[in-house]
C-alpha cells in the first residue's frame, strides 16, 4: 500500500467533493470553476513529478503508476482543464447545476486516470464505471428533449456494453483463472500452442472485451450511440466525450491487450486482425456518414468514428507485428494527444459560436470569416488538422502512426487510411467553405469571454507546435510506451 502513488487521483476526488460541499455556502458559482481548475493543476503537478518513477504495480497489482499511466493522466488532466476553460459562458445553459457539472467532470476525469492505471480486470471495470456514470449524468444536464434522449440512449447502450465487457472478462477469467493482467499473460504462456487456440471460451472472452471497449472508443459496429449523444449533449460535454472518453478507451485497450494478450503471437495476431477490420469499417462508415450531415456536432461525431479508425491502425500494427518489435503504441499515443488538442479546439470554437448564434447548423456559420476572422481561422486550422494537412499536428500524427503500420507490412491498411483522409477532406472543407466564402446573414461580431478564447488559442498553438516540432512529444510517447517491450 503506497497511497502517495495516487495523490493525483485523490486530489481530484477531494476537489470534486469540495466543489459539491462548497456549493451549499457560496453564491458566486464561478468560484467552483476556479476551484476545479486549481484541483486539476495540483493533480497535474503531482502527476508530472511521478514521470520517470515507473512503478509497475501497487495495491496488490491492482493499479500501476508507470510512465504510461502518467502520460495518460497528464493528457486527461489537460483535456479536463481545457474543457472547463471552454465552459465559461456555456454553463449559463444549465445555471442550476454548475457545481454538479464541475464535480462530475472532475469525477469522470478521476475515473479515466484510474482506467489508464488499471492493471487488473476488476479495478479496470470499476474505473470504467466511475467514468461512464459521471458521463451519463453530464450528457443529460441540458434537460431538454434532445439532451434527455441522448442521455437515456447513452445510458442504455452503455449499460449493455458494460454487461458485454463483464461477460468477456468472466470468460477470460474462466479460461485463465486470473484477473490480474500480468498473471493472465503468464497463464497464457504456460499453455501450449494448441491450448489457447483450442479454448473457445478464451477467444469468446477476448472478442466480447473488444466489443465492450469498442463502445468506449466509438468504433464501428459499436458506434450507434455517437451521433445522437454528440448532438444532444451539452457541447462542452460532447467535446469532453469525443476526446477524453476515447483516449481512456484506447489507454485501457493498449494496456489490457498488450499486457495480458500480447503473447503468444497466435493470439495477438488474431486480435490484430479484428482491429484492422474494425479500423477499415470505422474509417469508411464514419467518413461516408459524415458527408451528408448538416449539424456540425453530428458531423464531428461521425468524424470521431473515422478518427477512431485511424487510431485502430495503430492497434492493428501492434497486434500484427511481432511483439518484440512492436512500435504501434507510441504512434497511437502521439495521435491521441494531437487529436485531443485538435478536436477540443474545434469544439471550443463551436461553443463560442453557438453561445452567440444559438445554432449548430453548418449553414448558419456563413460569413464567420468576416464576422470574427480569428475564431474562423482557429476553426479552419483545426479542420485542416483533422484532414491531416501539414503544418498541423494531424498530419504528423497520421504520418507517425501510418509509418509504423507501413513498417510492419500493413501498407494496404495505410493506403485505405490515406484515401479515407482524402474523402474526409470533403466534409471538413465544407465547414471552411461556408465560413469564408458564403455571405453572412448578419455582420455582427461574435463575442467571446476570455476563458474560451484562451482555450482555443492554447489548442491552436499546441496543434501548430506538434505539427512543426513533434520530436519532443514523440520521444515522450516512446518512453511511455516502452513499458510494453519485453
Amino acid at each position, binding site marked *: 500500500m503506497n497511497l502517495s502513488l495516487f495523490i493525483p487521483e485523490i486530489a481530484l476526488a477531494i476537489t470534486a467533493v469540495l466543489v459539491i460541499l462548497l456549493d451549499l455556502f457560496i453564491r458566486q458559482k464561478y468560484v467552483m470553476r476556479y476551484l476545479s481548475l486549481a484541483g486539476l493543476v495540483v493533480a497535474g503537478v503531482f502527476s508530472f513529478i511521478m514521470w520517470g518513477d515507473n512503478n509497475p504495480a501497487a495495491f496488490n497489482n491492482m493499479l500501476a503508476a508507470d510512465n504510461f499511466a502518467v502520460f495518460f493522466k497528464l493528457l486527461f488532466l489537460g483535456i479536463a482543464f481545457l474543457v472547463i476553460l471552454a465552459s465559461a459562458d456555456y454553463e449559463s445553459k444549465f445555471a442550476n447545476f454548475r457545481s454538479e457539472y464541475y464535480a462530475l467532470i472532475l469525477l469522470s476525469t478521476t475515473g479515466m486516470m484510474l482506467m489508464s492505471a488499471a492493471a487488473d480486470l476488476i479495478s479496470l471495470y470499476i474505473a470504467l464505471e466511475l467514468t461512464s456514470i459521471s458521463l451519463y449524468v453530464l450528457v443529460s444536464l441540458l434537460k431538454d428533449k434532445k439532451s434527455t434522449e441522448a442521455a437515456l440512449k447513452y445510458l442504455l447502450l452503455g449499460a449493455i456494453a458494460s454487461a458485454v465487457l463483464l461477460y468477456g472478462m468472466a470468460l477470460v477469467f474462466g479460461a485463465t483463472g486470473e484477473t490480474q493482467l500480468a498473471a493472465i499473460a503468464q497463464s497464457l504462456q504456460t499453455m501450449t500452442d494448441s491450448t489457447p487456440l483450442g479454448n473457445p471460451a478464451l477467444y469468446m472472452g477476448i472478442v466480447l472485451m473488444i466489443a465492450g471497449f469498442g463502445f468506449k472508443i466509438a468504433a464501428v459496429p459499436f458506434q450507434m450511440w455517437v451521433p445522437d449523444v454528440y448532438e444532444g449533449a451539452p457541447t462542452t460535454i460532447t467535446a469532453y466525450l469525443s476526446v477524453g472518453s476515447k483516449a481512456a478507451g484506447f489507454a485501457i485497450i493498449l494496456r489490457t491487450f498488450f499486457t495480458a494478450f500480447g503473447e503468444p503471437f497466435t493470439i495477438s495476431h488474431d486480435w490484430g486482425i479484428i482491429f484492422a477490420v474494425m479500423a477499415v469499417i470505422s474509417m469508411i462508415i464514419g467518413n461516408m456518414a459524415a458527408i451528408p450531415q448538416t449539424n456540425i456536432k453530428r458531423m464531428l461525431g461521425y468524424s470521431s468514428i473515422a478518427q477512431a479508425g485511424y487510431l485502430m491502425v495503430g492497434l492493428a500494427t501492434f497486434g500484427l507485428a511481432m511483439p518484440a518489435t512492436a512500435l504501434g503504441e507510441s504512434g497511437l499515443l502521439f495521435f491521441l494527444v494531437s487529436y485531443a488538442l485538435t478536436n477540443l479546439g474545434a469544439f471550443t470554437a463551436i461553443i463560442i459560436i453557438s453561445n452567440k448564434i444559438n445554432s449548430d447548423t453548418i449553414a448558419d456559420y456563413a460569413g464567420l470569416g468576416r464576422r470574427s476572422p480569428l475564431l474562423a481561422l482557429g476553426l479552419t486550422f483545426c479542420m485542416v488538422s483533422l484532414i491531416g494537412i501539414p503544418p498541423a499536428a494531424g498530419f504528423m500524427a497520421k504520418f507517425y502512426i501510418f*509509418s509504423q503500420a507501413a513498417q510492419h507490412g500493413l501498407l494496404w491498411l*495505410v493506403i485505405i487510411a490515406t484515401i479515407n483522409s482524402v474523402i474526409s477532406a470533403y466534409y471538413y472543407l465544407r465547414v471552411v467553405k461556408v465560413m469564408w466564402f458564403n455571405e453572412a446573414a448578419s455582420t455582427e461580431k461574435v463575442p467571446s469571454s476570455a476563458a474560451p478564447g484562451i482555450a482555443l488559442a492554447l489548442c491552436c498553438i499546441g496543434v501548430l507546435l506538434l505539427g512543426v516540432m513533434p520530436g519532443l512529444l514523440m520521444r515522450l510517447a516512446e518512453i511511455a510506451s516502452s513499458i510494453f517491450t519485453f
Partner: protein
Amino acid sequence: MDFNYLSTILFLPAAGALVIALIKGNNDKHIKRLAVVFTAIPLALAVYLFIAFDRSAGAAAMQFEEKYLWIAPLNANYHLGVDGLSLPLMLLTTFLGFLAVLISWKVHERPREFFAWLLLMETSIIGVFVSLDLLLFFIMWEIEVIPMYFLISIWGSGRKGYSATKYVIYTLFGSAFMLAGILSVYFTTGSLSMVDIANQGLGMVQTAMPAAAIFWLLFIGFAVKLPMFPLHTWLPDAHTDAPTAVSVMLAGVLIKMGGYGMIRLVSMFPAQAQQYAQWLIILALIGIIYGAAVTLMQTDIKRLIAYSSISHMGYVLLGIFALGEVSLTGAALQMFSHGIITGLLFAMAGLVIHNIEVRDLRKLGGLGRQVPIITAVFVIAGLASLGLPLTSGFAAEFMVFLGSYTSTAVAHLNIYTIVAIIGVVLTAGYILWMLQQAFYGPVKEEFNSVKDADKLEKVYMFVLVAVIILVGVYPAILTDIFKLGISPIVGLIGG
C-alpha cells in the same frame, strides 16, 4: 555556409504573409507594397545564388546546403539544398512569385487575405524545390493545397467552388499514394534523405514492398500534379476559374512540381523508370495529341491556354522518360520555358478579360487595332508557345525531340518522337486560330474604348518577353546548369 540563403528565400514570403495578415489598417497600396518587398528580396537572392552557383567540374552536386536534425524519432532532417536541376526552378518560382504580385495590382477584393495566401503559396512551392528530406518535401507539397483552395474559391470566377474542391481532392488523392510511397521508401532504406537514397540505391532491404510498387505509388502523386493523361481533368477547371495571378502560378510553377518530382523519382528508381518508360511515353503521347486536340475545340480564352498545358506537359513527360541526358535536359528546359510562356499567356488573357470583359473567343476580334501592345505581346507569347525559333519554346521542344529521338534507353523511341511531333502541328493550329480570332479580322466597334496595357502591365509583359527571347537565343544559360543536375541521374541509368 555562413548565411542561410535558402532558408531566407524559403521563409521570406511566408513572413511577408504573416506581416500582411497582422498589419493594422486597410490600405491596399500599403499591403501591395509589402508584398512586392517580400517577393523581390527572395528573387534577388535567387538571382545571386544562380550566379554564385559553382559550375566547375569538381564542385559538389548539392550546394548551399543546410542540414539540421529536426525530428529525432523519425530520423527526419531539416535539409535544404539546390543542384543544377532545382536551382533554375527555384529561380523561376521567385521570379513568377514577384510578377504575380504585380499582376495582381488590380485586385481590390479582400486584398489582405489575397496577398497573404499568395505569398504563403510561394513559400510552399519554393519549399518543394529546395527540400532534400522526403518528409519536408511532402509537407511543403501539401501546404500549397490550402492557399490554392482559398485563392480559387474566393477570388476565382465561374464555377470557382467546384473547381477549387476538385483541385483539392485530386491533389490530396495523389498525395495519399505519395505518402504511402514515401513511407515505403523510408522503411526500405531507413532514410528520408533524397540524396542518400539516390546515391546508395534501394538495394538495402526489400522488406515490405517491391521497388516497382513504391515507384508507382510515388509516380501517381507526381502524375496528378504534372498532370499526366488520364489524371489531368482538374487542370482545365482550376486554371480557368482561378484569378489571373494564380493561373500564372499554377501553370508557371505549380505543375512543374510534378515534373521535378518525376526527375527526382527517376534518380531514386532508375531501374524501375527504365522498365516502365515505354508505357509512360505512350501516355505522354496520348497527352500531347489528346491535349492538343481538345485545345482546338476551346472557345474560352483561358480554358484554351489551360488545355494547351496538358499537351505541353506531355513533352515534359516524354523528355523525362526517354531517359537520355539531352532529353532530360530538354524536359527541364521545357518546364522552365513553359513556366514563363504560359505565365505570360495567362497574364495577357487576364488582361484581355479584365479590360474587355469578354472571354469568349467567338465574341472577340479585330483587337489588333485597338490594343496594339497587348496584341503584340500576346502574339509573341503565342508564337513562343508553338515553338518559334529564337524563343525559349523552340529551344526546349527541340531539345526534347532531339534527345528522345537519339536516346537508346527505351526501344522504338524514334517512332514515338515522330508521333509526338504531330503535336507541334496541332499546337500551331490552335495558337494561330486563337490569335486570329481575338486580334485580327474585322475591327469591332464596341471595343473602341478598350484600354491598352498601362505602365505597370507593360513592365511585367516586357520582362517576361525579354526572358523568353533571352532563353531562346542563348539556351545554354539554363541548359549548362540543368546538365549539372541531370548528368549524375543519367549516370544511374543503364543502357
